[in-house]
């Protein structure tokens, strides 16, 4: 079995030798460079734009602005483009950093230089710079497309339940702008061949990008090929077609040469997505016996002035703990901000920060251990669907985590644990992430040299899917993983699920699994029908496969290799397709992944920076396909959220709303020295109700609840409850 083994990544060698090729590493003959010029104001209008100096600058081939851009086709709404307006649509400016021109030149230096020579005469209007300033505009969102979650809901009678509860809390939590900040900046290499376009793109979802690009350019989708094999981290900011892609494509058409456009780090921070600021008001009522009675969750998030984009922070509220009644209200408020983008743990990240913190506050109010409070409100059934959860080993996660962490050493009250100059605090939270599905296709080919190839479009963004999909195909075909190749990240391949929302394992993995099984079965049918095969005449179900060989499961010695079978039959290969139907999971159950986080923080009494010295995470994600990559991803998810909890804040200028930290120097993400001991384990029980492989998503649940676990530990250490992230030193220096 390859599944379950800690195999090294199949692309590991390429990644350590520099041979791994990312979008910006791809070159084509005659390639030239584009650079984008961004608006210096947050709101207003381009009164005049002077491109003469840029056009005259050395090496410049084209300067495109709203005045001379080619016609866009279709509409942003029809194409579900990320914004309601195509790039360079007109002279109006709706957010800082908005692209106002694209410059193409012979070298990178020339393009960057000329972009700086584009002179704009702005008519500046006052901007709505902050969420607080936008609050008077707070309103129920108008969904651009179909609603993704309820924005107004009352189950039971939350007001009455709250009023009747023994203990009531009314709390406000805030999260700031956060950036995905993947290490790889967004990039495009656009290349036309006659009327066909190839776009090498930093994308998590080539097939979803294709119709958008094709539509905007007025091409049939089959004239556009999108390639994205290796992605240098994404976390959601590569789940949309952004302006740079369309602009690179039109620039390449205009200059008649391949155009590479790599956006600057400042532009990544500005125009390629972020998680907007969110204010959450939670009211929680519980009785003295620790039973939660009611919760109301009212959220307001910043949204671009042009369209409403609600954040799903209410996502955990109604489904995580047993409650008699629930009320949610989701609002948005317009600000002059660039378009947000789904960010790792969308909704659940900020939502569980609030819910997990509020539970902790309630535990103190009731003088209950936080785990005990969670146990008393454990849910075996999805409360809104009325179906039992499948594979919910949350109680085991609490047990295992508490044991590994040493939770029993926790003092019952804050400010009771001290080690020299350090305050020590313990905190915990649970984690939950609903399991998402998408349709996925894959092909598996068994070749006459005994090897196999997997083909599915899913780009590798670091989650290890090249490796786990290889393992799945290896086990499905009975061919050693070292003999299995994989091709991915290209619209010429079968359409996978997008590599986002923790869907790869469940959806794309299932498609590969089915394709591999079918390829094996096709081979088995060939063998049993072939009089020259030692397997001739057996029922096909009695044919097993292992180590590149088909055999009789009752008499394992009897059999032959794929190689012999195919060559003898003059077959170069056997190719079969697999399709994952998102409706395929057993409808009697509800699906999610679960986990528990335990954090130890230390805070020097004088210099109050929070250090996470130990963190224990225990997760129930069904079957673990590769413990090596899974552990790595879980640790990474925990640290990702640790950054959000302790330092990440895409700070804005309070007057103009512009980002003042669009640099990795200022937008702090954790460095190596920030990371303490992170212990990851799994309560592993395959969930075959969810998928035939028994494996579920991993990349997100590991990061859900970490913010709360840390904030709870901080409170336990020094008795200061921080409800607005990040928990920076200034918030702990209150005397």
């Amino acid at each position, binding site marked *: 079995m390859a599944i379950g083994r800690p195999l090294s990544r199949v*692309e590991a060698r390429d990644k350590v*030798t520099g041979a791994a090729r990312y979008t910006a590493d791809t070159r084509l003959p005659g390639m030239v460079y584009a650079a984008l010029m961004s608006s210096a104001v947050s709101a207003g209008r381009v009164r005049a734009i002077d491109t003469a100096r840029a056009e005259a600058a050395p090496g410049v081939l084209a300067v495109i602005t709203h005045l001379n851009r080619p016609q866009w086709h279709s509409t942003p709404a029809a194409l579900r483009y990320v914004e309601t307006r195509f790039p360079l649509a007109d002279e109006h400016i709706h957010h800082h950093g908005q692209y106002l021109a694209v410059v193409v030149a*012979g070298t*990178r*230096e020339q393009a960057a230089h000329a972009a700086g020579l584009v002179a704009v005469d702005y008519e500046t209007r006052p901007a709505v710079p902050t969420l607080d300033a936008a609050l008077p505009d707070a309103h129920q969102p108008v969904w651009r497309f179909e609603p993704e979650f309820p924005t107004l809901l009352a189950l039971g009678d939350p007001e009455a339940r709250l009023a009747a509860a023994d203990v009531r809390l009314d709390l406000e939590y805030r999260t700031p702008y956060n950036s995905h900040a993947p290490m790889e900046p967004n990039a495009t290499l656009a290349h036309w061949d006659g009327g066909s376009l190839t776009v090498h793109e930093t994308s998590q979802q080539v097939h979803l990008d294709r119709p958008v690009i094709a539509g905007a350019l007025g091409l049939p989708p089959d004239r556009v090929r999108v390639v994205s094999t290796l992605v240098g981290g994404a976390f959601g900011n590569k789940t949309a077609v952004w302006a740079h892609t369309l602009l690179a494509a039109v620039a390449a058409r205009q200059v008649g040469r391949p155009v590479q456009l790599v956006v600057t*780090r400042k532009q990544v921070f500005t125009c390629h997505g972020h998680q907007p600021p969110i204010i959450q008001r939670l009211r929680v009522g519980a009785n003295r016996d620790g039973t939660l009675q009611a919760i109301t969750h009212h959220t307001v998030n910043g949204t671009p002035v042009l369209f409403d984009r609600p954040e799903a922070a209410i996502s955990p509220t109604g489904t995580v703990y047993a409650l008699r009644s629930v009320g949610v209200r989701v609002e948005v408020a317009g600000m002059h901000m660039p378009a947000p983008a789904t960010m790792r743990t969308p909704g659940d990240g900020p939502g569980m920060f609030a819910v997990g913190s509020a539970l902790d506050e309630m535990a103190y109010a009731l003088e209950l251990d936080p785990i005990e409070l969670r146990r008393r409100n454990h849910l075996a059934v999805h409360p809104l669907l009325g179906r039992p959860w499948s594979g919910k080993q949350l109680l085991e996660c609490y047990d295992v985590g508490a044991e590994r962490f040493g939770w029993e050493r926790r003092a019952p009250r804050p400010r009771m644990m001290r080690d020299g100059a350090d305050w020590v605090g313990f905190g915990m939270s649970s984690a939950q992430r609903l399991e998402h599905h998408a349709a996925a296709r894959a092909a598996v080919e068994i070749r006459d040299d005994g090897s196999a190839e997997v083909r599915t479009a899913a780009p590798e963004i670091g989650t290890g899917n090249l490796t786990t999909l290889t393992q799945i195909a290896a086990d499905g075909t009975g061919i050693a993983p070292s003999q299995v190749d994989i091709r991915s990240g290209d619209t010429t391949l079968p359409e996978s699920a997008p590599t986002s929302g923790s869907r790869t394992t469940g959806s794309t993995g299932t498609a590969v699994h089915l394709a591999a099984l079918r390829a094996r079965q096709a081979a088995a049918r060939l063998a049993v029908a072939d009089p020259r095969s030692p397997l001739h005449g057996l029922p096909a179900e009695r044919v097993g496969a292992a180590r590149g060989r088909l055999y009789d499961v009752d008499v394992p010695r009897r059999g032959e290799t794929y190689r012999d079978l195919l060559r003898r039959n003059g077959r170069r290969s056997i190719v079969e397709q697999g399709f994952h139907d998102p409706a395929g999971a057993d409808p009697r159950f509800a699906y999610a992944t679960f986990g528990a986080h335990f954090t130890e923080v230390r805070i020097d009494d004088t210099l109050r920076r929070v250090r996470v010295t130990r963190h224990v995470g225990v997760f129930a994600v069904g079957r673990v396909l590769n413990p*090596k990559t899974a552990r790595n991803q879980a640790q990474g998810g925990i640290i990702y959220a640790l950054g959000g909890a302790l330092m990440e804040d895409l700070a804005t200028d309070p007057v103009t709303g512009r980002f003042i930290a669009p640099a990795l120097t200022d937008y702090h993400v954790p*460095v190596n020295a920030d990371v303490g001991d992170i212990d990851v384990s799994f309560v592993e029980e395959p969930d075959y109700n969810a998928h035939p492989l028994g494996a579920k998503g991993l990349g997100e649940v590991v990061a859900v609840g970490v913010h709360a676990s840390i904030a709870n530990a901080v409170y336990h250490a020094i008795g200061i409850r921080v409800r607005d992230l990040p928990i920076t030193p200034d918030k702990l220096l209150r005397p």
Partner: protein
Amino acid sequence: MLAGGLSLGAGLAAPPVRAEASGAKPEILTLVVNGDRVRLEVDVRASLLDTLRDRLRLTGTKKGCDQGACGACTVLLDGRRVLSCLTLAVMHEGSEVTTVEGLAEGDRLHPVQRAFVDHDGFQCGFCTSGQIMSAVGLLAERPRVTAAEIPELMSGNLCRCAAYSNIRDAIEAAAHLSREGE
């Protein structure tokens, strides 16, 4: 091998820069990159990073920020780890540059590279060239580096996938290996 001192390994001939179009007088520069001597004309504004990537086609070295803030562009310059985005190519006449492409000997990976594979010291891999070059630089600075010192001395290399624990383990293992090799 070198063809008239102008090419860099197989298929890595430096493409000509269009001098007349660059706007500034290009400078002639000689570098020794991964052991090969290359001569090329460079725009004075070109960073060492862009020169390696765009001109010498050594795209293993990555640009994560161009701000000196991520470490993805780390290379060895005359044996010391530096950020290639923060320095201009023209300033390094005659210098020796080692990039991630120059570490392995044929098929044999450098001990740091092998340790990164074994310990799964990456996810997306975008920071990895920089991490590895930084680790090689670190081991040259301090062959006896201890496990406790590694986090601070590797903090100039961000990993947003946050494979930090594995990166530490990999470097510790490589340090062991190279000490045993002494």
